[in-house]
């Protein structure tokens, strides 16, 4: 019987190479441990958030806000539709005119999930942002907003925008206290 490993270049070496020398200088360690690298020192990331919730308060409004939080996190389509309409109203009424210009591109951010700390971007959820390149983002101008992804029940990203991962977030199945969302909008301003 012929041995396939007799082919030139396919032989199995019986000499074990020494381990590659690790680069452990301070700059390399900083790049590994600092998730903000290469942002400039003192960098400030502007943000806009139209809704809020209280995680601990016991008032009726706080309880409703937590229900809204749960429904947003589980990507409830009715709730997201209401929220989208509210945000659209805010944009038209110039609530944050400089924040959401017409040429902005929304880049969904992966949810916080456990991953290998030695390779923080190894998670499949991180691939959408990791794979973003100037070439693929070119048609959207130079304005980018990073934010939580609006996924449907199957974990799919919106059809518009860049081509992102469609992996279902792990934490979405852990929210079980689903309630109808209609009660939010009758009491909020």
């Amino acid at each position, binding site marked *: 019987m012929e041995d396939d490993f007799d082919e030139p270049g396919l032989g199995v070496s019986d000499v074990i190479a020494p381990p590659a020398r690790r680069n452990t200088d301070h700059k390399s360690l900083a790049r590994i441990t600092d998730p903000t690298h290469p942002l400039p020192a003192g960098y400030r*990331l502007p*943000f806009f958030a139209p809704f809020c*919730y209280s995680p601990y308060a016991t008032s009726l409004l706080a309880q409703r806000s937590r229900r809204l939080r749960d429904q947003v996190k589980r990507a409830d389509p009715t709730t997201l539709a209401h929220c989208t309409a509210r945000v659209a109203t805010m944009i038209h009424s110039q609530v944050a005119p400089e924040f959401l210009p017409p040429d902005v591109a929304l880049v969904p951010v992966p949810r916080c999930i456990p991953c290998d700390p030695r390779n923080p971007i190894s998670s499949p959820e991180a691939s959408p942002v990791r794979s973003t390149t100037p070439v693929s983002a070119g048609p959207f101008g130079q304005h980018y907003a990073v934010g939580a992804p609006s996924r449907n029940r199957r974990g799919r990203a919106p059809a518009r925008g860049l081509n992102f991962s469609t992996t279902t977030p792990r934490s979405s199945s852990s929210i079980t206290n689903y309630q109808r969302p209609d009660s939010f909008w009758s009491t909020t301003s």
Partner: protein
Amino acid sequence: MAAAAVLYQAIPRAHIRAFALIRTEGLAPDIDSITAPTLGVIRYLGGDAFRSP
């Protein structure tokens, strides 16, 4: 913040901002309204991200 860093690395000239549909008001004793549009900044200090407000 980490996502902004990755995006900044890929597109250094981009104007990056963060959008969150709903934010946590964990330090306030209660909230006055669920609909409360807010502009602010997020900074990375001492190994953690801080949002203001």
